[in-house]
């Protein structure tokens, strides 16, 4: 079968790091990712099913991996070689169309009893994502045992399968996984006014999820590009500003004071960073009101940031990773209601992975939101 495979190849990894710094997405052409003919992954046990991906999205964390900019934190919780792709809608052997909950927590790993977090349903807090019957891997798409969505076949535990209704398009369904992240993040926000930083896929979906969960919340969003501005407003932002205008917008919205250097006296009650860059984290800390929480939804990396405002204003920095199972149900419902298929801007066959990744790395500037691989026409898909 055909699959994009990411191998542990230090020399190529170094080349990807250099290329990725010069040009985001360039790591795909020189790094350890390649299109291969590989054996299909074996079913690890009786509760496992085969999934033939139909669409599989390219996520920011995938881009960081390909460009060699992701943190070494992941080293013990991924296994090589792996096939990326954790945003997946696919077909099961029985014809069921489903999305995959990619987190590889205790149950898929055959661990019994499950860890305390999994016992409470908090699969995103699972303490054993490097243990059990499977090779290490926090999610499908980072685990050698399961394969990933950027291929014609992967495997998933039955507990990871969420069937989707017939009237939900593949394009909308492929956004269910990132939307579940957004639904989870929104559930952690209690502030009456929230600034959402970034209007890429995750930012836009977080705005939508916030609006759904909290109809009365006041959402101030940042967006770099015109299409992002209009989508952010359509999905529920009350006000959308350019990133450089955010401090002034927060000041104006809250009526707080401002020092001569632009620093705010107070800030906004809730901040959700959907970018994860050093700049966005620093900005998030600058605009958060004293005693409030900055939620890091976009995957950060190794970063240098001035934590003085965090200390002086007793601001908490909290992560928001993945989701719990129930978030997927909400996401399936929301994806249909909000017609989220329109966020899929372009799809590519596996063989054009270089172009696909370059497009995804510059999605905003090129007027796009989500870029995905389209496996529906891959020849081998029907013959495996």
């Amino acid at each position, binding site marked *: 079968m055909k699959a994009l495979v990411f191998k542990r190849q230090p020399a190529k990894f170094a080349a990807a790091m250099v290329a990725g710094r010069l040009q985001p997405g360039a790591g795909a052409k020189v790094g350890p990712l390649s299109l291969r003919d590989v054996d299909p992954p074996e079913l690890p046990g009786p509760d496992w099913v085969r999934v033939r991906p139909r669409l599989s999205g390219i996520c920011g964390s995938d881009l960081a991996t390909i460009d060699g900019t992701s943190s070494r934190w992941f080293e013990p919780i991924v296994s090589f070689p792996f096939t990326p792709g954790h945003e997946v809608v696919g077909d099961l052997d029985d014809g069921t169309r489903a999305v995959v909950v990619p987190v590889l927590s205790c149950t898929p790993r055959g661990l019994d009893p499950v860890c305390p977090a999994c016992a409470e349903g908090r699969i995103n807090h699972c303490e054993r994502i490097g243990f059990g019957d499977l090779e290490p891997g926090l999610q499908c798409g980072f685990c050698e045992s399961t394969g990933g969505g950027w291929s014609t076949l992967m495997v998933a535990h039955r507990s990871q399968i969420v069937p989707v209704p017939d009237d939900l398009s593949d394009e909308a369904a492929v956004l269910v996984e990132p939307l579940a992240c957004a639904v989870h993040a929104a559930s952690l926000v209690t502030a009456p006014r929230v600034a959402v930083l970034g209007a890429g896929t995750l930012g836009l979906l977080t705005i939508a999820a916030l609006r759904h969960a909290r109809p009365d919340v006041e959402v101030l969003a940042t967006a770099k590009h015109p299409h992002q501005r209009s989508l952010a407003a359509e999905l529920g932002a009350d*006000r959308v*500003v350019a990133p450089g*205008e955010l401090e*002034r*917008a927060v*000041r*104006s919205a809250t*009526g*707080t*004071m*401002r020092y001569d250097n632009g620093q705010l*006296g107070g800030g906004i009650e809730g901040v959700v960073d959907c970018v994860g860059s050093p700049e966005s984290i620093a900005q998030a800390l600058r605009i958060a009101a004293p005693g409030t929480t900055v939620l890091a939804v976009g995957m950060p990396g190794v970063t240098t940031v001035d934590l003085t405002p965090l200390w002086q204003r007793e601001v908490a920095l909290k992560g928001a990773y993945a989701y719990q199972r129930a978030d997927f149900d909400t996401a399936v419902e929301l994806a249909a209601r909000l017609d989220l298929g329109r966020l899929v801007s372009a799809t590519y066959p596996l063989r054009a992975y270089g172009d696909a990744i370059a497009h995804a790395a510059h999605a905003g500037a090129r007027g796009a939101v989500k870029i995905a691989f389209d496996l529906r026409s891959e020849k081998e898909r029907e013959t495996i």
Partner: protein
Amino acid sequence: MPRPGFVLDVDKSTPPILFHHGESFRLERLPAGRSRVVYPAEPLEPLEDVDAAIRHALDNPIGDSPPLRALLRPGMKLTIAFDDISLPLPPMRRPDVRQRVIEAVLDLAAEAGVDDVHLIAALALHRRMTEAELRHAVGDRVYDAFAPHGQLYNHDAEDPDNLEFLGTTRHGEEVEINKRAATSDLIVYVNINLVSMDGGWKSTATGLASYRSLRHHHNVRTMQHSRSFMDRHRSELHSSNWRMGEVLRNSGVKVFQIETTLNNDTFGTSGPLSVLQKREWEWTARDRAAFIAMKAGLDRLPIKARRKIFNSWQAPYGVTSVQAGEVEAVHEVTTQNTFAQQLVPVEGQTDILTMGLPYICPYNVNSVMNPILVMCLGLGYFFNMYRGQPLVREGGVVIMSHPTTWEFHPVHHPSYIDFFEQCLAETTDPLELEARYEKQFAEDEWYRHLYRTSYAYHGVHPFYMWYWGSHGLQHVGKVIIVGGDPRAVRRLGFSPASTLQDALEMASDVVGRDATITHLHNPPLVMADVS
């Protein structure tokens, strides 16, 4: 004998016409056969002895008022209020006429043994004047005698301890002004009447007022019912101020009004800018060479250097009249004197009104002409320079020439930035802006802090700028800005054009291909008396 203003019908022999364009200029050829240019009058002869005229006015008041010296007595509380940095434009060469008038008033006060004297810059919600600006307005002698003792200062419309509520008009408008002024035995108001909007009861009822009071006439409804606000008898802005004046009078506030008028000598009859005051077909070869050299030189300079050059210009205005006494009687005479310089009879309206906007307006002295001020100068001030009916017909097109850069003075105009980035991104409808955002900006503590302690216009001020243009916005079918930053122009809700020819082409979609065009050749100031 200065020549009056007049209207030139453009024909094939008409040379290109001067358009002011921020800190530069454009020469534009207007279509022959359907264009006309309204030229200002040449500067009226100034008074030969201004100081003597001032003394005469103080001793021979107009209306129901005794001479000033009869109103002064030992032990009294005297407040001299004066117009702020927004007048005149550009600033006048020293000595400023305010200085001359104030010195004359202080001489009389000293003679009468008055020693409780305060001088207040009546700036309403404008930015505070700096020491240098105050010195320029009142002179070093007055400044040094009063400022160090805390007796010369800027009005603070947000100081709750220094405002006095005096009651409401018969229309329910609250009247609240500076407490020192309100509780004085006499206010002497020293005015410069650059345009006919200035002066009268507007001096005290606006210049010394608080936001609570100002909001009753600085609003969209009032401005849309002021046709124009340069014509007091058809201006709801003035009607409201006059009603407030009635409350002041009935509350026992005594005002001795001193108004002055200036001539049109804005750029001088000799010197580097004098060509701007001449009619194009009368330019000599030397004028042309000077203009071309000036424009080429300016266009090569960075904007900051250009701005510095223009901001340093001080006009050699001549004082044409001084009148003093009872507010309303004085103002009637002042208005006639202003009209004598500025009014030009114009027959009928036009389809397209063109205007070249200069580098300065009342709210960017020593500052930056930001896009909101461009709108205010064009659709507020220039559009309203009419009596009778607007120079452009209803549904017509206004074409303004200005660079309209997305640039703001961070100290002077902080709330403008937010207004531009936040409010105008949502709507350009004055009524909606007023309803949705005015209160928030007016009561914002940070803006209030900057207005009171820094040199910032009040938080609500950008709204007033927008309201100033609301009659124009309501009246015209399209506004085009030539040579402006397209992004900033679109944010204003207007259309950008690269050249005047492009703008005329765009205008034809609204007013047809044979539309008539009128260019308001301003500054020096000209006001159309449209029949």
